[in-house]
């Protein structure tokens, strides 16, 4: 897979792929000065609006700009139709799985997924056992990372079932997405809600790397952006502190981790969170999105079983395939991985954000040796995948337009209905040849367009 040239989404050889016909003319006609002027304009706007993210553990500027590439990525309507069906199917299966494992655990009884992968999982939340959230939905915003290696070859790289970020970097869907999210949240009102539900966004605060996104969503949806200290529990409900006294909250879209939701339930030593929140939740006084414990489904060890979930719960064949994955917990797989380490990508089971991973072909010998030692020490903590030749799209670089590797993160909303905005976020590795698209590791973003028929 590594030998051939990666799939270029705009050109096949010398031939222009049809979805890019309009852009080809645009890019050709644009004088270089105009382009660099526009790029500066875009950066100045990002800076002024404050579309920033912070990189943890590096010091430096806490308000770093997300690099934005003006050259959009384009899907034809037919390409998108197939992707969309696959994404909906997967989001549905992941939610069915979560509702199942906190209820009767049929999939575990049937032996399709080893029970220990679920019950011994750090993200498994015993407090949720036996509780069914409104509409049976655990993960309300499912981000599914997809890579492409050929015209019809799409693979799911990983699932994000907790609180995937990045929606604020989408430009094309800037207005549609928040409207859909609002509709989804409103459809999830708890049992005891009377009248129109009041939703809020719960943020860790303005020091959080995704704070811009939290405030963007609150603003676009017209809901309050609250911190834990703004909330309190009294009687059977959750309230916010306002200038006019307490007001009831029905739906909480939280952008904080499970562990910081309720010190009475999760971390008695924590000063953070809202004491008593989980009691109100379990008695139907408030809805928490995503539900605590939803993280079990996006674990990389569980990932291997998602195609099985689709078959088990939906009785369908998965439309989107997984990337072939070696589970280092298995002795045979581990042996294979150690032997081929320099060709593989190795990831931590619970890792995210591109941290703690090894890209074999780009690693030095010392890095490889160090990583092999880590693998032997704790094999169950790792999975490995082939180094995929991610597709490329044209990207503006210092030296002009050049192909760069991209992936795709669409956001699927699950409430009364399953909703999906066309496109999603395309992440791009800005360094030539690099395959790491995470913004914390030198990646940028592009807009994603889906053509009408």
């Amino acid at each position, binding site marked *: 897979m590594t030998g051939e040239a990666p799939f270029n989404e705009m050109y096949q050889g010398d031939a222009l792929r049809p979805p890019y016909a309009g852009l080809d003319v645009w890019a050709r006609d644009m004088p270089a000065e105009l382009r660099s002027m526009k790029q500066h304009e875009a950066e100045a706007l990002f800076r*002024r609006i*404050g579309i920033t993210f912070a990189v943890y553990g590096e010091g430096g500027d806490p308000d770093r700009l997300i690099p934005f590439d003006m050259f959009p990525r384009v899907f034809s309507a037919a390409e998108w139709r197939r992707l969309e069906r696959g994404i909906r199917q997967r989001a549905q299966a992941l939610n069915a799985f979560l509702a199942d494992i906190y209820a009767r655990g049929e999939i575990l009884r049937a032996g399709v997924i080893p029970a220990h992968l679920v019950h011994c999982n750090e993200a498994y939340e015993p407090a949720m056992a036996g509780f069914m959230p409104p509409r049976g939905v655990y993960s309300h915003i499912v981000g599914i990372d997809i890579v492409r290696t050929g015209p019809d070859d799409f693979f799911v790289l990983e699932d994000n079932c907790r609180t995937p970020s990045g929606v604020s970097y989408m430009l094309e869907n800037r207005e549609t997405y928040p409207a859909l999210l609002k509709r989804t949240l409103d459809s999830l009102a708890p049992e005891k809600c009377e009248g129109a539900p009041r939703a809020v966004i719960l943020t860790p605060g*303005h020091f959080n790397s995704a704070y811009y996104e939290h405030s963007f969503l609150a*603003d676009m949806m017209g809901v309050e952006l*609250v911190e834990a200290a703004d909330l309190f529990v009294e009687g059977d409900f959750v309230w916010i*502190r306002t200038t006019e006294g307490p007001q009831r909250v029905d739906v909480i879209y939280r952008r904080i981790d499970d562990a910081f939701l309720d010190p009475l339930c999760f971390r008695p030593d924590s000063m953070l969170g809202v004491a008593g929140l989980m009691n109100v939740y379990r008695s139907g006084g408030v809805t928490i999105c995503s539900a605590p414990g939803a993280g079990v489904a996006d674990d990389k060890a569980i990932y291997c079983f998602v195609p099985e979930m689709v078959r088990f719960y939906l009785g369908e064949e998965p439309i989107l395939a997984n990337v072939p994955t070696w589970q280092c917990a298995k002795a045979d797989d581990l042996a294979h991985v150690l032997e081929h380490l320099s060709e593989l990508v190795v990831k931590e089971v619970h890792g995210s954000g591109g941290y703690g991973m090894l890209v074999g072909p780009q690693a030095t010998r010392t890095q490889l040796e160090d990583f092999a030692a880590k693998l032997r020490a704790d094999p169950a903590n790792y999975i490995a995948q082939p180094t995929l030749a991610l597709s490329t799209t044209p990207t503006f670089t210092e030296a002009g337009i050049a192909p760069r590797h991209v992936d795709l993160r669409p956001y699927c909303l699950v409430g009364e209905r399953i909703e999906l905005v066309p496109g999603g976020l395309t992440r791009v590795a800005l360094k030539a040849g690099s395959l790491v698209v995470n913004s914390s590791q030198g990646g940028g973003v592009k807009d994603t367009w889906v053509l009408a028929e």
Partner: protein
Amino acid sequence: MLSRTAANLYWIGRNVERAEANARLLEVGARNALIPNTSGGFRNEWDAVLRASGTAADFAQRYGEPVQRNIETHLFFDLKNSSSVAACVERARENGRIVRTALTRQLWDALNTAHQEMREMARTERSRLSLSDMTDWAIHTVAQIRGAALATMLRNDAYDFLNIGGALERADSTARILDVKYFVLLPHLSFVGSGLDNYQWRTILRALSLERAFGWAYGGEITPQKIADFLILNRQSPRAILTSVETLTHHLDRLARGYGRSSPAQEAARALHAELAEARVEHVFEEGLHEFLSRMINALAAVADVVQRTYLSGEAR
């Protein structure tokens, strides 16, 4: 509105106003330092400025001698001095960032631009920055922030909290500037009414951009009575304590109307307003200017305290 949102809006109001007050204080100091002959010489002038900013002890501990360059650093750039212009601008922007959804684009833009320009200035070599560049920048920037709020914000409770913070801070800073002038700059009564005295009063008016306005309102000779009247009791004067208290009362009344219930904050502000509306400048001098101003500063702090408890703490029921 979330109490925390209200609190941050209120503090944007206060911080922005305080940034301007400190920039203007610096300007007063610089202008006064140009005349050599006051008692105690230039040191006295700068000392007065530090006292007015409420940071004299802090300054002495960190820098020692009040040399102009150090005072500029202290009052303008030093983030460790919580009332320096830079600290106020940074805090106002931080307050804004926390409550972005309650701000208009233009208001956020103005706060964010101020923060970026401030950083840029802090990186600039000091020999290339004159004091007037710095103070002019601060005054312009604050005008821009205020203008953005005035021109673009809905006239709702968010606007009220922003203005309540601003009005309290402005009343307080006028009281402090006046107090310093009378109590510290001129300890010897014999100076009162002398040419030198007049010059100093004039610099205060000029630093407040009120010299011409004063001329139009009173004409003729500058006397302490006229100045005190202008800066405390004259409704036409934009920085008079009475004017700020009127603004304060107005916004507290609007809040109470909008929320459909009267508040203790409203009562406290009204009582203060009633006293100032009745007062005459002779009464002020009978009580003693310093005594009167100290009482005002305390009364304003008391109102701020009630506002805090009523609206900003989240304890309202």
